[in-house]
């Protein structure tokens, strides 16, 4: 029992003891409620429904109640009831909307598969993690109103992802408008002789 190994160990702990006073690398605790660590942008917790603007969240929900996420969700924590009537969505096409959209936060494991499989980018992952509530159902089963958050909030928490999604949606919208305008132009100009090729669609 020659003790040299023990002394080496004591030297390491001594260095850490002294280091913790001046070397930030050796003093890693952040006092949580007062100081908060900066969450990385990709951080995900529970999903939320994206609405186009904050003014009328229920009116401009992107979700069209196609129930793909309900089927694909591994723990089956999403519950959707389609609406009977239809309303115009951002592209103006009449679409269904979810009359009821529940997510049971106690069952959801925030695996973001619903975000991956949603073809309409209607559901995205949130970054809120202080969700302690007293009741099991009123607090943890979030309904449509509690889930909906505006697109501006989405751009704030996931900037790069939001930019990419908005770019894609804008492109789709432009393509839809061009097609609609081309269809309208083609419908409006069938009378002139067909020899003349239809005028090119407006830029």
């Amino acid at each position, binding site marked *: 029992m*020659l003790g040299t190994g023990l002394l080496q160990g004591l030297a390491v*702990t*001594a260095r850490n*003891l002294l280091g*913790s*006073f001046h070397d930030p690398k050796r*003093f*890693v*605790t952040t006092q949580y409620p007062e100081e908060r660590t900066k969450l990385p942008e990709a951080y995900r917790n529970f999903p939320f429904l994206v609405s186009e603007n904050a003014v009328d969240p229920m009116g401009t929900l992107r979700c069209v109640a196609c129930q793909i996420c309900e089927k694909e969700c591994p723990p089956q924590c999403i519950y959707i009831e389609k609406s009977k009537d239809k309303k115009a969505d951002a592209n103006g096409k009449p679409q269904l909307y979810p009359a009821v959209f529940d997510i049971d936060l106690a069952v959801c494991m925030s695996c973001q598969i619903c975000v991956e499989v949603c073809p309409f980018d209607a559901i995205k992952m949130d970054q809120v993690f202080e969700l302690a509530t007293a009741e099991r159902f009123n607090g943890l089963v979030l309904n449509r109103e509690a889930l909906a958050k505006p697109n501006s909030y989405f751009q704030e928490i996931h900037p790069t992802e939001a930019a990419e999604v908005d770019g894609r949606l804008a492109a789709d919208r432009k393509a839809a408008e061009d097609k609609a305008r081309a269809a309208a132009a083609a419908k409006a100009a069938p009378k002139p002789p067909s020899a003349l090729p239809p005028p090119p669609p407006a830029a």
Partner: protein
Amino acid sequence: MNAGPAASDPILERLPGLLRDWLLQWLPEPVRWLANSLIVIGCILAVAGLLFAFLTLAERKILGRIQNRPGPNRTGWFGLLQPFADGIKMLTKEDIVPRAADPVLHLLAPVALIAFSVLTFAVIPYGRHLVPVELDGAVLYFFAAGAATELAVFMAGWSSHNKFALLAAMRALAQLISYELPLLLSFVPVVLATGTLSTTGIVAAQAGWRWHFLPHWLVFTPWGAAGFVIFMVSALAESNRSPFDLPEAESELIAGHLTEYSGFKYALFFMAEYFGMCALSGMAVTLFLGGWQAPLPFLEVIPSYAWFAAKILLLLLGFIWIRATLPRLRIDQLTRLAWKFLVPLALVNLGTTAFWLLTAPWAGPLQVVRWAVALALVAGPFLALGRGLSAGLGPRTYRYA
């Protein structure tokens, strides 16, 4: 009572004595002695209690800092109220006494443990004239009181009528007894050298400085250093501290002999452990580090009890530092270390001291020979026994496929 402080001592040195005299002046002569004892007892309990409280906090803060975290800092400013919070928690916790337990013995065990460990504070010289009890056989009294704590540990194990507590109490007893021997053997050389068993005598023998900077503390002699190391290792084991904290941290089996204790009795056990640690550190300072002697002549201005406090806090810091670093020894390794390593070394140390004292009158160059032989007598058995103990253990080299 001890001799009054000399008039020439600086004012701070005489302060405690003056305070006491001022307090006692109104009382008639026969009652004065009783009041004096009560004051001394009150001071000891107050200082020991506060030291225990802030020692637990210091332990958690230093342990935290070593582990790169702040330690308790939520209660009060920098966590200073934490010990009082723990105290209140311990007081308010329900005190469960198992039905099968022997109630009287169950209650008496922590009380006995506290009593014996506080007894040991009576003979430690805290300052130049601050010795609670001036005894000729002070060191003997100290270790006799210290050894009685083993009875209390077994009382705790036996009275809780729990098979595992009894088993763990016997293991704790084995550890305490097997480390009693090196503890006692390591202070015999000090008595040999100073020729007295009284603590004030030992501290007085360590006064003065050689060549104006090296104090006459016994730790600066080869046999003194070896004795000090053996004393500290045994003190670690006696107070169930880190590498030897087998009994109460017996996480492998059950929570040791403290299984059936809760609430304030459980806190008493920990208070007793910290008292034991402080008492043993105090005795180590007295025996080897020159008690309340100042390390350098011009530092005499700082009062003696401050020096004693500084040294004892340094040793307690060492206890905490070791607790933060070293893993635990198994029960058989622990007892083998005591019997096969510390006891033989302590016996050899006796021989070295005898050689050291006999060759004291050697002059000039012979002193170098004297030092060399003494060092050889200390290092030789250490290496031989050390190699024997750790036979087959050692760092290894690894091949790669």
